[in-house]
Each structure stands twice: as C-alpha cells, then as structure tokens.
C-alpha cells in the first residue's frame, strides 16, 4: 500500500534484516515468559497483525518445537468510531481457530498508537471466551496513548509527534519488509486527525528513539 498522499518518508526505522531480527527477539521473549507454550494462542489484528502473528508462531516453533495456533481478529464491528469514519470499512472477518478459554492469548499488531484498536480487540476477544490472560505484542510502539493500555512485547519503542505516522510494510501485504517513519508534507489538504482507532493515519514527528520497552513518563 502506498503511503497516503500527504505523507513523505522521513526515516527508515527498520530494513528487512532488522525487522526479521526484531521478530526473532520478540518470539524468544514470549517463550521466555511462557515456557509451557502449549497453552498459548497468537491472535493477529487485521490487517498486518495477522502475518506478524504467523511469523512469530513460525519462529516460536523453530525455538521450541511447538507452533502455537494463530487466529485473526477483524475489529471493525467493535470500533468506537464506526459511525464517523467515513464510508463503511470493508469487512474481512474474524477467525479464531481454537477455544481461548483458560489460555494465554497474545494479541499481535503492527503499530501501537492511541490504544483504541487494542480496546476493540479486547472486547471482541472476550466475546469468544475467557482467556487466562491477554498480552499485547506490537512491532512498533509510537506513543500517544488515549487509553490505559501498554505493550507487553514491543519490537521498538519510539517517541513521535502527531505530525508523523509509522508505516509497517510486510511482504505478505505490501511486497517488501520495511518500517518507515513518515511525516506530513506541508500541502494543500490539511487533514484533521483521523479518528481511526489505533494507528498510522495520524500525523506526528519523531525526536529520538528510546530503548525498546523503556517506559516513557506520560504527561
């Protein structure tokens, strides 16, 4: 997917190699916390959370011999802005292949931003059963939370401004593996902050990166 027209590339945050090593590290972190991996289910948030969850599962299999089941969550029907986003978003469907009762569910998404996508995903997951616990793994945590939500596993944590956006490109969806920091071009079409829950549509500008999983003081 091409970046939205009013944005231009500012910086490459990860190339294919770096993205691959980041995912390996995250897979090992999940295994470290859950040695009994058989009670774990990975659930990707559509669109890009699903291929990320599949890749994590494959790496967990390499390291442990067991591949955890992977599900897909389409949170559209649970969005808090469904009636204001513009035309109806296209539904791609939810697919949870196994019971989640009593298991550990690791939600997987590409970018953690306002936290609204995760809120919707939590509501939807709980309609499928009662997991023992739910954790959150994201490739990039870019800050600006609007809800009390944090990532248990983050590939990279960085401070951004709202003038910027983080774009995760994956082979399965976009043809190549890259993570980009985009910034809004001063153009004729200024947009008010899109209310998409979650991620990348909103503008922001990066200052510096903080080490992965570092806690930033808020407010």
């Amino acid at each position, binding site marked *: 997917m091409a970046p939205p027209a009013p944005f231009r590339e500012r910086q490459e945050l990860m190339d294919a190699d770096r993205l691959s090593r980041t995912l390996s590290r995250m897979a090992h972190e999940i295994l470290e916390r859950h040695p009994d991996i058989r009670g774990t289910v990975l659930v990707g948030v559509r669109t890009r959370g699903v291929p990320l969850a599949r890749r994590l599962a494959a790496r967990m299999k390499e390291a442990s011999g067991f591949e955890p089941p992977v599900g897909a969550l*389409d949170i559209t029907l*649970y969005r808090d802005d*469904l009636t204001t*986003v*513009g035309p109806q*978003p*296209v539904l791609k*469907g939810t697919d949870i292949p196994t019971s989640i009762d009593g298991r550990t569910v690791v939600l997987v998404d590409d970018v953690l931003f306002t936290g609204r996508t995760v809120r919707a995903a939590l509501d939807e997951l709980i*309609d*499928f059963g009662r997991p023992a616990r739910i954790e959150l793994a994201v490739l990039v945590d870019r800050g600006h939370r609007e809800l009390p939500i944090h990532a248990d596993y983050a590939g990279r944590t960085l401070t951004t401004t709202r003038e910027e956006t983080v774009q995760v490109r994956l082979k399965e969806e976009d043809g190549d593996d890259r993570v980009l920091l985009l910034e809004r071009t001063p153009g004729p079409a200024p947009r008010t902050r899109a209310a998409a829950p979650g991620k990348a549509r909103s503008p922001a500008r990066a200052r510096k990166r903080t080490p992965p999983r570092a806690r930033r003081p808020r407010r």
Partner: protein
Amino acid sequence: MTAPAYPHRHLLGIEPLEASHITAVLDTAEALREVLDRPIKKVPALRGKTVVNLFYEASTRTRASFEIAEKVLSADSLSIATSTSSVQKGETLLDTAKNLEAMNPDMIVLRHSASGAAHFLARHCRSAIVNAGDGAHEHPTQALLDALTLRQRKGRLEGLRVAIVGDVLHSRVARSNVWLLTKMGARVILCAPPTLMPPGIETLAPTTYRIDEAVEGADAIMMLRIQQERMTGGYFPTLREYHARFGLTEERVRLAKKDVLILHPGPMNRGVEIASEVADGPYSVILDQVTNGVAVRMAVLYLLLGGAEAA
C-alpha cells in the same frame, strides 16, 4: 478516500445495482456469517441505531431474519405488523411512515403489497429504506441470499445455468433473481405456464413453457411458490394438474446436472410446485438459504448504517 463498495443510501431493488455492489454485499455477508457461530452472537457495530420493520404483508422468514440480524448487530428494532396497527383505522402508508419517522429511526424495512412502495418511501423519508418485498416487483435481499447460497456451493455465479420455475407472474423473487444472476454472468431460463408468464419478461431472460427443457443441464433450480393469495382468476385447472405439468419431481431433477442445487424462497406448497422428496432431498439447500438470509441482512444493515452518512 476510496469510493465505498456499496455507494447507495437505500436498498430498493437489484435492478439499479452494479455487479461490484452485489459482490460487496455478498463478501460482507460472508465475513459476517462467522458471528452467528460465536458463543456470544452479538457485536456492537450498530449500537444506538434504530430500525423499524414495517410489514404490510404476512412474513415468517424475512421478518424473523431481519429481526435477528438487527439484534446480532446491536441495533434497536421494533416490528410493526399492520394487522395490529393504526393501518386498520385507515392510516395511509405515507402518514404511518411520517409518524414513525418523527420518532427518529435510522432505517425502515418495508414489505408492502404495492409495487414501488419502497421507492415511494425513499422519496419522502429521511431514513434509509430497505425493500423487503414490494408487490410483484422486487425482493432484493432474497435474491442476494440465493446468490450467496449458490456462490458458497458452486464457488462462482458466472456461467452457471439457473432455471427459475413456477409462478413468475406474481413473483418478486423471480424478478430480483433474474436481474442479479444476469448482472453476475449466470445464464437464466424462466419456466411457467403461459397464464403465469408475464408478457414482456422475455426481454430479461429466455422463457419456456416446458419444465423438462428448463431444468435440463441446470446447475441450479429455483422453484417459485404458487401465490394463491394474489390470484384473482383461474390460472390453471387444479393444483394436481399444476403439479403434474410444472411440479419439480425426482424424475425431473435427474435431467439436471448431477450436482444440481434446489432452491425455494419459502413458504413451500409441498406436492404442488415441489415434491416433498425433492424438498427434503440431498440437493436441497432450502435451509442453507434461510441461514444465509440472516447473514445477507446483516450485511445490508452494516453497509447502510455502518460508516458515516453515505452520500
């Protein structure tokens, strides 16, 4: 912003839709079907939306499936059957609709015995209007659920040979299906006794008076109900004779392709247009149609009421 997949404010009929709009409804229905198999069959998508089901004609399937679809998507709904409403006191359709609109619903689902009733409301009301059957004109959600059933079983609509057999004259289901299937590239053949074949229909699809010719080599057979409540004259001598000449029997099913599908919009007149052993037989997908009816109506509700106000 890309163009919406379904760019209309109402669903009045299949005739004004393009193939891509039909595909959008079917794909959305496919994605929503899964919700019906969940332990908690409810999603919050249409919270705070109000839907009025206004039914001027008897209905079991259509009304029940609209109501279930509304509840699964968390819309608030109320159903008005005209037999117990002020329509009995002589209120006109427009007055009833205007009064209901004063209570601010977001959508009116209308079934009415007059062709064009839904179009009439769409011109005079602010709400989104869904046509749940208007006279002998259109029944778009039925055609959509038939298409969904065919697409699930056959994997496609394009190139399918579909026979539509029975009381074509009174059938809104037949009209909606002819439009939908032709737009999607299927080949339709209509079959009815001469008295029940509306003049001019051959401009939409080829016709025949012989059921054997219609079902020969068919991928799917859609049977239509004999609508005795709409019949004002003698269209055929007896129900037995109708069954002998135009009823779908096992022998006739054998003329079709081996993997033929048998559809019927319900309610069935067993032993008239369809033999019981066919209705309950292995080719019958009649109950699949009913399940798909809920999914299709969920898709229509979502496409019309989800998202910001359409253009």
